[in-house]
């Protein structure tokens, strides 16, 4: 697989005042990569992707993307949405298209169809006219994923998107991501604590704790972890054995 580079991060350091959350991180992402970014709570994953998205400023380092690359973003803590916010599911998903548009912000027929298709794909079409605050956490997460997907972005950046999903939905969710990745060539950066579920779909693991500790394939990561175990050792071993059989 030879794909063009879509994101290049060099010597990135991000601080909150004096506290260093991300320290001297370098890696690059190629088109159609499906990367899981893992690490313990507070290891700087959210800080890293927020900096990549331009929401935080880096103290040092560079982030380079080719011009014209579009990004879809699913933030962490979608559960903290205002329960009383008056917005219907279709209004929220439409935001994924309308927020990027120039004036006049009107949806074309094709775009309305896109919204319907995405809602169908995520199996939330029956919720279209519901208030988002009235949905369950997992349903809300699917709505916000729909909002990220509806504009057909080149790169998807997802911050713990599966934390509120049940077992079945989690599998469906990864199948959808995998389909987008392999059939539509979407590059995916996925922050997750559930590397065991993601491992079948990803082609790379980035493991960080302020610094970048590992960058490579999942099986190489498992080998690496035999020397210095990671918190998820148990599920990893289990997974690894399954792979070998």
């Amino acid at each position, binding site marked *: 697989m030879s794909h063009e580079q879509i994101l290049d991060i060099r010597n990135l350091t991000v601080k909150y005042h004096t506290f260093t959350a991300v320290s001297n991180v370098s890696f690059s992402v190629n088109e159609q990569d499906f990367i899981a970014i893992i690490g313990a709570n507070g290891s700087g994953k959210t800080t890293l992707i*927020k900096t990549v998205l331009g929401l935080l400023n880096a103290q040092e380092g560079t982030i380079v993307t080719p011009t014209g690359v579009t990004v879809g973003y699913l933030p962490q803590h979608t559960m903290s949405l205002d329960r009383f916010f*008056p*917005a219907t599911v279709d209004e929220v998903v439409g*935001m994924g298209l309308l*927020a990027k548009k120039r*004036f006049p*912000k009107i949806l074309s027929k094709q775009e309305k169809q896109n919204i319907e298709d995405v809602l169908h794909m995520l199996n939330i079409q029956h919720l279209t006219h519901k208030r988002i605050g009235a949905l369950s956490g997992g349903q809300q997460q699917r709505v916000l994923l729909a909002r990220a997907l509806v504009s057909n972005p080149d790169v998807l950046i997802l911050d713990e998107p599966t934390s509120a999903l049940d077992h079945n939905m989690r599998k469906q969710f990864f199948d959808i991501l995998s389909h987008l990745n392999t059939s539509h060539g979407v590059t995916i950066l996925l922050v997750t604590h559930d590397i065991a579920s993601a491992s079948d779909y990803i082609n790379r693991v980035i493991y960080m704790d302020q610094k970048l500790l590992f960058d490579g394939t999942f099986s190489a990561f498992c080998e690496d972890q035999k020397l210095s175990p990671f918190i998820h050792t148990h599920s990893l071993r289990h997974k690894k054995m399954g792979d070998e059989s």
Partner: protein
Amino acid sequence: MNIIQELMAAFSYGFMWRALFVGVSVAISSSFIGPYLVLKRFSMIGHGLSHVAFAGIAVGLLFRTAPLIFSMVIVVSVSVFILKLNETAKLHGDAAIGLTAAVAMAFGTVLASVAGGFNVDLFSFLFGSILTIQRIDVYLSITFSIVVIAVVTTLYHDLFSMTFEEDFAKVSGINTKRLNTILAVLVGVTVVIGIRAMGTLLISSLIIFPTIIAMQFTKGFKTTIVIAAVSSVFIVIFGLMGSYLLDWPSGSTIVLLNGVVFLGVYLYNRILRPQG
């Protein structure tokens, strides 16, 4: 009918029509910005700014120049200032508003006492009085309301995205800093044009009430704004007529009517409607 005759008589005078024009335009513009402020947890900014408007009016009256224009310049500047304070200093929005309101009120009352009182009834500026509304106020409110409504309508999708989730809006390329500043200017303008009918102390309720009344039974964002505007227009019209008939201050009458409607909608939702 006595009441109808009385109302007919009222409408034969110019002041009642002026009050209606001012009231309706303020009702629409304040319910257009209300949802953004309420949902961004910034609804008390109207309250803070109304204190500033009071100080502005005191200054204007002191120099015998158009108090509302004077007030508008000051209020809009302070509104943007509060926003910047909230963005940059380690100060929460409500603290920034509380401080500004207190300082402005202190300043206004000191001015009033130094000047030894004004030849205009300050009370009417505090609680609203339809009798004091001039032709120029009508032109001002209609013009500025149209500006507020036009800007909010044009920027509707950006404001909606930003209110729902600021980070997502930024990633989508929306300049949220600029948008927040525009919102702050619109709030300042709305507060000042509402002073004649509502009074400085009560204008903020015209920003908050329609939104929370609408939120009791709407699901979508657009419908919330539309219902807020429609209900606010009706409440203001009935409030102004009530104010005339009962000889109550217009702002107070409108606020009380809003309270009654809110209570009615709330109870209806809680008790009479089968599902929650």
